[in-house]
């Protein structure tokens, strides 16, 4: 059962398309990692899915509801937190909770209060005094307290240090296990996603390069190293995503489509970030946007 469906979705600002012709199905109950370089349209996609703007082209539907036309029915079922969460700076944490309880029919204030207490964030703290990590946590707690069926998180960890990122992920996983919700989480940091997310969408320039179950994707790709002269034979069986050649040797990242019979070839498992990087460099010309992603994967 798909929770969210996008069909030929596009958004244009002036003459520039921020997102173009995106078709995507998101199955229910998953924690979906939406991965792609900056400028791939991740933020725009999530904002259109929230109904913040009318798409320039195509449609997006969640639970069979249009985020724009059926806003009154749609909004109570969805939670949202953005990168560098913009919270009212003059508010206290308690004010934010009060806002949530006043602006939502379903609001689990007890859960929100206990989560914040566990995080050690006092209600009388002013938002301006919170660290970036605490703000991200508060934004996530606010989104969760709506008791949503679908949670959209736009680069929620972009401003967090590794420890805070770990805490955030733990909170997210605990909540998704308790509340049984679907999460779509955009990120350009791939490292943390393997443990948290069970579904992967790789997006470049509004096109999906790779969509599927996280374990199947990671298990279904291998690095193959073998003699260059038998490259064609390998290519007839396996789907070559990325190939590097030396004089006589080929180093391939492949999607496994059949058995590896040639004993001269060796196979190695690959990481998620290697797979993602291979798909990104296969399909998109290398631009400035990709460099930070590559630096991330290389480190």
């Amino acid at each position, binding site marked *: 059962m798909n929770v969210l469906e996008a069909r030929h979705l596009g958004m244009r600002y002036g003459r520039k398309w921020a997102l173009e012709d995106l078709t995507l199905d998101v199955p229910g109950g998953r924690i979906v990692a939406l991965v792609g370089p900056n400028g791939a349209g991740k933020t725009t996609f999530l904002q259109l899915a929230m109904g913040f703007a009318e798409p320039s082209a195509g449609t997006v539907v969640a639970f069979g509801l249009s985020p724009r036309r059926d806003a009154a029915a749609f909004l109570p079922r969805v939670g949202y*937190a953005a990168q560098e969460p913009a*919270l009212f700076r003059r508010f206290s944490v308690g004010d934010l909770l*009060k806002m949530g309880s006043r*602006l939502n029919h379903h609001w689990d204030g007890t859960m929100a209060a206990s989560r914040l207490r566990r995080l050690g964030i006092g209600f009388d703290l002013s938002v301006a005094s919170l660290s970036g990590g605490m703000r991200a946590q508060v934004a996530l707690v606010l989104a969760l307290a709506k008791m949503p069926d679908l949670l959209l998180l736009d680069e929620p960890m972009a401003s967090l240090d590794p420890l805070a990122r770990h805490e955030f992920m733990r909170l997210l996983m605990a909540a998704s296990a308790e509340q049984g919700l679907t999460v779509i989480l955009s990120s350009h940091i791939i490292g943390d996603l393997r443990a948290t997310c069970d579904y992967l969408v790789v997006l470049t320039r509004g096109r999906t390069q790779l969509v599927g179950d996280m374990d199947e994707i990671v298990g279904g790709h291998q690095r193959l190293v073998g003699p260059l002269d038998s490259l064609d034979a390998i290519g007839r069986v396996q789907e070559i995503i990325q190939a590097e050649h030396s004089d006589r040797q080929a180093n391939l990242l492949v999607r496994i489509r059949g058995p590896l019979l040639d004993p001269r070839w060796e196979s190695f498992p690959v990481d998620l970030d290697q797979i993602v990087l291979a798909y990104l460099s296969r399909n998109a010309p290398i631009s400035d946007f990709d460099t930070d992603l590559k630096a991330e994967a290389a480190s």
Partner: protein
Amino acid sequence: MIWLTWRQQRFEAGLATVVLAIGVTVLVMTRQAILADIYALGIPSCLSGIADNTTCSNAYQAFKDNFSAQQTLLGALTYLPLLIGVVLAASIGVEMEQGTYRLAWAQSVTRGHWTVIRIGLPIVFGMAITGLIAGVTSWWMQPANQVQGPLRPGSFDVQGLLPPAYMLLAFAITVAAGVLWRRTVPAVGLGIVAGAGIHLAIQTWIRPNFIAPLSRLWMSGPAPYGPQDWVVQGGAGASTYVYSDGAGRQLSSEQVQAICGQVVDAQSKSAWSSCMQAHQIGEVVKWQPPTRFWEFQSMEAALTLGLALALLCLTVWWLRRRTV
């Protein structure tokens, strides 16, 4: 949503209320002094036509001079509504700049509901505050209105419908700029400059001609307009004059000088006067009578409210269609 808006703007609301309280106190305290001045100068007997002309025109002039001590207060009262509008709208610019509107939009209130309350509530509050100010100011101006009429620039702007109307105009400019631009400081700057600019332009070029002014060729004798009239062309103390001869031809000051020379002393003045009379040349004076006060108020309010409404429509359309 009402609570959220109040929580976001309670500082501005408090500020406006404090300003209102100070303003009302000052007005109540100074009104008595103005009334006392009117009685001391013997103006009531002038208004009922008992006293003679020379005494009265001296009394009127003295009152005008004394009243101009209130000029600072009048100036503040003229621009206060603009400032209130800008300050109330600035918070929405901040919200667009910091992106906190997305937090509100991600709750279970629809965009239409958010827009109506977030923009509507500050408008209602601003209209109430400036309406109160206008009410108190109109009451404060009553004595001065009786002496010098309600139409003079400065007096006219602080009474009746105009304070709320200009509050809304400044609010609409600032909120439109804030929503389209997403920068608070330039939006506030534009609100102040454009608000005051439009006000000045209307006051200078449009208001004198809302209705064709009464006009007279003034050759000699007492002024054809009264102390309560608003003279919009020529008259005593004007910086430029328009002349016309018996045939109805308009003459510039230079042409008149070529015919009758210049006034330098008392002697040349009487020669100049008889020359003017001989050539049937007079000065064209135009004025607006005080009875047109409410017509003028309605016209200017309609003009500014129309402008403000157009800007608010643009803002709402932009919020609904173009903002992510």
